[in-house]
């Protein structure tokens, strides 16, 4: 390119600029909204949540009670924690269809060791954590070592983990009274504390704590920045000096660990340990992430969005139920929400230039 050429290029840009700025003035408000939503990925989900609270508050009796609110939180605790694992992975432009399977397998290990075999409960829990972490690491290994798409890898391991969990548990449920007798610590996170008519479980507090921890990790550590960078543009991240495969592997492993923590919470929530439980947990976790404004294309989103997403689903389910709407319409509405959220994301990701 010669200098004369770049001069022309300059001129073209400048003359083009006038036209563009004229048009920009025209669509300024929409543009500003766009930029706002782009900079604050949790803004849109928060607005949806606020709007749904207002609507259900108006149409459903007993909706706005501390008790109902705490019930919603209890209901979303397990999915919220799975959503943390899912958010980490989706931020890297991956996906994990096996989160709930990892969770159930971990809980089965905890139950089998702690209750059926009577090992010390602490040991059983640690073993559950180890199994969850190993499952996540296996996903990460397959994704990074063999360059397989995360969707396919975790679709496969979903079945594998589910089968392993049926085999290891003999498809038997560990009953609530047996847990109480031998390993009550497993149900710790199901215990409730009453605050002003609301009933919070320890599990809900743990969930909130985990969201806080991962908010910090994602925003204030180099690892967190790397997670975003990899999801944004893996090749650029690699060239910029990030060991992308190592970080990716650690993301899946940490995700597996978080699923195992969810397992402990889930035991408290259900009271028993069933290999058949939470079969839809995989998809529910993805739903929470997507409604929370995290982009399935990676690199964009915020961990608290997932909390908002999970609560939004809970609010819709609870509100529609209190309003006397049939369960099938709850599913219908959640489905619509997902599609709207993804459509929003597509729009938001288009950067105005």
């Amino acid at each position, binding site marked *: *390119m*010669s*200098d004369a050429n*770049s*001069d022309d*290029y*300059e001129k073209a*840009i400048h003359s083009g600029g006038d036209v563009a700025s004229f048009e920009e003035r025209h669509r300024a408000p929409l543009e500003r909204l766009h930029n706002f939503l*782009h*900079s604050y990925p949790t803004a849109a989900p928060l607005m949806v949540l606020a709007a749904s609270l207002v609507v259900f508050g108006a149409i459903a009796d007993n909706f706005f009670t501390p008790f109902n609110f705490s019930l919603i939180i209890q209901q979303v605790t397990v999915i919220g924690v799975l959503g943390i694992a899912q958010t980490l992975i989706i931020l890297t432009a991956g996906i994990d269809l096996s989160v709930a399977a990892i969770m159930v397998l971990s809980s089965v290990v905890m139950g089998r060791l702690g209750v059926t075999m009577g090992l010390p409960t602490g040991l059983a829990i640690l073993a559950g954590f180890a199994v969850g972490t190993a499952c996540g690491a296996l996903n990460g290994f397959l994704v990074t070592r063999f360059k397989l798409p995360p969707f396919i890898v975790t679709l496969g391991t979903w079945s594998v983990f589910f089968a392993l969990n049926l085999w290891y548990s003999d498809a038997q449920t560990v009953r609530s009274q047996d847990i109480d007798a031998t390993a009550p610590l497993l149900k710790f996170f199901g215990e409730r504390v009453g605050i002003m008519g609301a009933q919070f479980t320890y599990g809900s507090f743990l969930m909130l704590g985990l969201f806080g921890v991962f908010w*910090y990790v994602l925003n*204030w*550590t*180099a*690892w967190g*920045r*790397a997670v*975003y*960078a990899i999801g*944004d*543009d893996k*090749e*650029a*991240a*690699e*060239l*910029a*000096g*990030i*060991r992308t495969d190592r970080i990716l592997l650690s993301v899946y492993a940490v995700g597996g660990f978080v699923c195992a923590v969810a397992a402990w919470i889930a035991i408290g929530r259900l009271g028993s340990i069933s290999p058949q439980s939470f079969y839809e947990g995989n998809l529910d976790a993805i739903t929470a992430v997507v409604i929370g404004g995290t982009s399935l294309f990676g*690199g*964009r989103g915020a961990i608290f969005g997932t909390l908002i997403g999970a609560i939004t689903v809970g609010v819709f389910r609870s509100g529609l139920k209190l309003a006397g709407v049939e369960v099938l319409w709850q599913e219908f509405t959640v489905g619509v929400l997902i599609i709207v959220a993804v459509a929003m994301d597509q729009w938001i990701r288009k*950067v105005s*230039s």
Partner: protein
Amino acid sequence: MSVDTSVEPILSGRGLTKRYGRVTAMDACDFDLYPGEILAVIGDNGAGKSTLIKALSGAVRPDEGEIRLDGKPMSYANPLEAREHGIETVYQTLALSPALSIVDNMFLGREIRAEGFAGKYLRKLDKAAMRRFAREKLSELGLMTIQNIDQAVETLSGGQRQGVAVARACAFGSKVVILDEPTAALGVKESRRVLDLILDVKKRGLPIVLISHNMPHVFEVADRIHVHRLGKRKAVVDPKKHTMSDAVAMMTGAMEAPPEERTDN
């Protein structure tokens, strides 16, 4: 020639070869960069310039050949290792993360940790220090028309993005700075600033590899010109002894370099 080529090159390559399937992007290519010089690399599109500098910066593993840094054989497993040896690169693709902020991008993979407990045990980043540093480096480049250092890179113009990538490389390079078409998206004024910055870096004593299609730029700043053609170094010529059209002719194969400057035999 103002460059002393009797000393050992800082960075050199011998017989570098890289094949992509049936395409040979680099064909037994040699390369030498001497202390304190600006070496321009010119060549047609697809000649293999980017592949060469990617091999030198650890982004591509050559199938054959040897790279030496300060005379010591090097084999980088990844760009980070090259960077840890002081080789800093602006890739043609810029290697920026669009959704991350300017500061985050400048410090990607080399973040500054906070002091004390938080930094040591909680691995907390010192965002204030990183902002300060980034702002300083961007002002040096005259890029402080950017109002907000926390703004996402994707909201910047192509030229501003290039500026961020150049600022990052020049700020952190401690041994060699490699720039793959750093002025391609820049206007006249911004190109000028980048050229000045390159000359500044040279004054700091760092050698620079500059890939460019812009002959006036090349002839203004380069001490030597590496002519690349069909995956090979064909010649290394002195810009003072040749005209721009000669250089273009050598690059396209329309003309041979004088025998004493040819390197491909």
